[in-house]
Structure formats: C-alpha cells, structure tokens
C-alpha cells in the first residue's frame, strides 16, 4: 500500500512538486500572481493583508505563509515582499528557514526598484526552480509518510450518517499504518466536545479539547456574537441539521476513533504522529488553508449540500453522503458515500474504497478541484486591522 512521492531535503515527502511564489503582504501579492502566471509549474497563494495587523495576527500570518513554503508538496519558494510591511521579508524568510531547508529566494520590490524589475528577477529564479524540481525522482513511500487533513463544509444530515463516518474509517486506517490525520473546526466540536474528549490520549489533551471550545465561545461573546445564532448555517438547517450539537455530533465522526495525541494551534505543524486536532474556525476555507500550512499533503473534504472548494498546494478530495448532490454536482464532487445510506455498502467497505481513492490521488490522480485550478486561501484573524 505505497504511493509515489518526492523526497524533500528536510526529510518530508510531497505528493505534488510545485514551486511557490509567496507574498509577504497584500502589496506584493499581485506581483506574485504575475510571476506565477509566467512560469509553468509555479503557483501563488493570495495574501490579503500582512500589514497593519496586531501582533497576534502577524504571528498567524508568519505561521501560515511559512507553513505553505514548508508544505512538502512545494519544491521551493520564491518569496516576494514590498519592503515596508509589518510582516517583513526578513522575518518571513527566517520563519521558513526554521521549518525547512528547501530552496528559497527572496526579492523585495522597493529594493529591486519596482514591479518590472522584481518580476524579471523572480521569473528567472522561479524558472530555474521549476527545472530543478523536474529532476526530483518520484520514489515509492509507505502510508506512514502521509499527513491527511480532514474538513467538512456545506454539511447536511447525510454528512453525519455517511460521509463523515466513512472519512473516519480512512483516518483510522492512516493512523494504524503509522501516518497522521488532523481534524479541525473547533466550532464543530461544540456540543460534541464531551464525546471527542473521550478520545484524548492524556488528561492534558482532554483539557485542551474542552478548553478550545470554551475559549471560542468566549471569544465570540466578546464581540457580542452568540455562536449558536450563526450555527448551523441556513443551508445546514435546510439540509436537516437543526442545532450546533447535532452538527458537531455528526462532524466529529470524520476524525475516526483513534486516540488524539496532539491539539495544534491554528496553522501549526505537529510534533507528534497519529490522530491530531487543530484549533480552527468552522469557516471551511480558513480551516483547509491552516491544515495545509500545518503540512498536510492531501485533504479530504465532506459535504452534503455540495461545495467547489480546492487548494492550490494540496489536492482536495470532495466526498458527499448525499446521492442527489453527487448527481447534481458531479463536476465538483470526487466520491459518493451515499451508497452507505442506500445500504449498498457498509461504512467500513466505503471507507476502504475512499482510502484507495485517496492513494490514487497521492499517486498523482488529479482531483476535480485541482482540474479547475482552484486556489481558495483564507486566514483566521483575531481582531480589526490597526
């Protein structure tokens, strides 16, 4: 049960082999987009701030964007800054170097003397990296090298009955084979945190699981937001999910049943292997990007209502438990777990089939969101801009 991947100098293994054009801030993001558009094999991710941020937001920005550069699906990074931003090119470079020793080039627009000069140099650097990346051989690696991110969005009542338990089976299989799987979205633990906490490997981790739920409710209360008035979403309700408890009890199935060995902060890389939790919002895109920054090579994303979400660094495999959604949105959804509700397959059988689909994607199969080149990117924030 192996896959073909790309060994990186930091020891990690990628399933894609891309060159990343990375902006430190909003003022260099468009330059990065222009650079990436001129180099086949290069990608860029948007950055809509990186400046005028409070310290805690700056930290998230460093964690997130350095995490993208360190993600094993990336061969190397061309970092482009403006020169006067809060999230400095020097600090970002150092954050990246703390996480990985992969190829890295840095350009600063104000030092290069404008956009055209920067694009010129950055395109040269990116082209060279793409050529080097093409020489990395694909080698065979075991499942223990995989780090799966698990997400859900646009849930309906089939999510908790079929899609999430099926993904939970995949999570357990990866963990049993020595790999890692992270489940996120603290919002969608609330109401089920007492059930999830039973999976904690230690009493300390149990406290952390309950603690992140309590902290999120309090955080939202500080801006006079009752979490329960925003959750479930109108679409969730129409789909048969009536309360946050019902949503969460269905959601947590996607994390499987193995002991939880670490609770990660937003966009942090794990220090342990096995079943993990990341403290992210219920906002699916901001959650996927955080797990990719944490190092996930592949994402499985369950949906009931149907969503198009992808990610430019890690392939996103879309799974639904709703047969109608699968038929209606077949250009967006990769895998139908609705067969479980029909009684045509058990959760375990369907989980094994999804595991095989995930392995195909790890071996190079292009997911539906990848085929569109979708590039959603969103970052969690603590408060207003300065």
């Amino acid at each position, binding site marked *: 049960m192996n896959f073909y991947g790309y060994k990186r100098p930091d020891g990690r293994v990628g399933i894609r082999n891309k060159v990343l054009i990375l902006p430190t801030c909003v003022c260099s993001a468009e330059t990065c987009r222009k650079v990436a558009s001129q180099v086949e094999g290069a990608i860029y991710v948007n950055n809509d701030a990186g400046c005028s941020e409070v310290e805690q937001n700056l930290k998230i920005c460093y964690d997130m964007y350095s995490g993208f550069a360190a993600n094993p699906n990336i061969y190397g990074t061309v970092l482009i800054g403006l020169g006067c931003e809060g999230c400095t090119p020097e600090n970002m470079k150092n954050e990246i170097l703390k996480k990985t020793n992969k190829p890295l080039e840095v350009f600063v627009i104000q030092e290069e003397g404008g956009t055209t000069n920067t694009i010129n140099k950055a395109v040269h650097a990116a082209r060279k990296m793409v050529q080097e990346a093409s020489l990395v051989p694909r080698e065979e690696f075991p499942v223990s090298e995989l780090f799966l991110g698990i997400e859900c969005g646009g849930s*309906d*009542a*089939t999510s*908790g*009955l079929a899609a999430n338990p099926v993904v939970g089976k995949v999570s357990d299989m990866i963990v049993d084979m020595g790999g890692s799987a992270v489940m996120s979205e603290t919002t969608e633990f*609330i*109401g*089920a*945190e*007492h*059930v999830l*906490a039973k999976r904690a490997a230690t009493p300390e981790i149990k*406290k952390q699981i*309950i*603690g992140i*739920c*309590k902290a999120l*409710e309090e955080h939202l209360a500080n801006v006079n937001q009752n979490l*329960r008035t925003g959750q*479930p979403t109108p679409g969730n*309700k*129409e*789909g*048969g999910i*009536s*309360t*946050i*408890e*019902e949503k969460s*009890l*269905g959601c947590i199935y996607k994390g499987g049943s193995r002991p939880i060995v670490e609770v990660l902060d937003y966009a942090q890389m794990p220090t342990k292997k096995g079943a993990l939790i990341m403290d992210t919002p219920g906002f699916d895109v901001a959650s996927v990007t955080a797990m990719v920054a944490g190092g996930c090579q592949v994402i499985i994303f369950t949906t*009931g209502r149907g969503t198009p979400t992808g990610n430019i660094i890690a392939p996103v495999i879309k799974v639904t438990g*709703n047969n109608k959604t699968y038929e209606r949105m077949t250009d967006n959804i990769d895998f139908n777990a609705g067969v479980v*509700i029909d009684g045509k397959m058990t959760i375990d059988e369907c989980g094994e089939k999804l595991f095989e689909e995930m392995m195909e994607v790890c071996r190079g199969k292009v997911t539906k969101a990848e085929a569109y080149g979708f590039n959603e990117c969103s970052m969690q924030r603590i408060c207003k801009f300065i």
Partner: protein
Amino acid sequence: MSKNAIMLRPIDNVVTVVADVVKGDTITYLKDGEQCTVTALEDMPAFHKIAVADLKKGDHIIKYGQIIGGLSVDEAKKGTWISHRNIISLPRNYEDEL
C-alpha cells in the same frame, strides 16, 4: 406510502427519514434489530428528523445517543417533523466537563 428512516442509537427519540415524506406516510426504522413504525403527521424533506416519542417543551431531543437540543414548542407528538423550527441548542457546561 411506506418510507424508511435511520435510528442511530436505541435511546434516540428522533429518526432520520431517507426520502421526502408526505403526511400520512408510514415510516419504518430498526430499533435494536426490531422493526418499528411511526405515522408522519406532516410533510418533511429527506434527511430530516421525525419524532418517535411524544415530546413536551424542554424535553431533550436525542440523536446519535446524545442530546442535540431541547424542544422549544409546547409539544411535539410522535410523527412530528423535528427541525430548527421546534428545537433549540442548549448552553454547554464546560467547567463540569473538565
């Protein structure tokens, strides 16, 4: 007509219908391997919940063997469509869970 529903745990007091339901349909589900039925008192969409017990205001609604909320209307007889219109989320007591 007869329609199927899924009971996730035997202690649940709601089941999930797997097809659109119209008033008067007989809803069949398995409870601990035993076949049970309830008659739908109203129309409801696929994958929504139907009460399999008579409920009154404040009663806990149980699905997945867990509390998913409390009844917010005076009563919901067996066969009622249970949704966000008649149940509400309940506050957590995190201190007790720690």
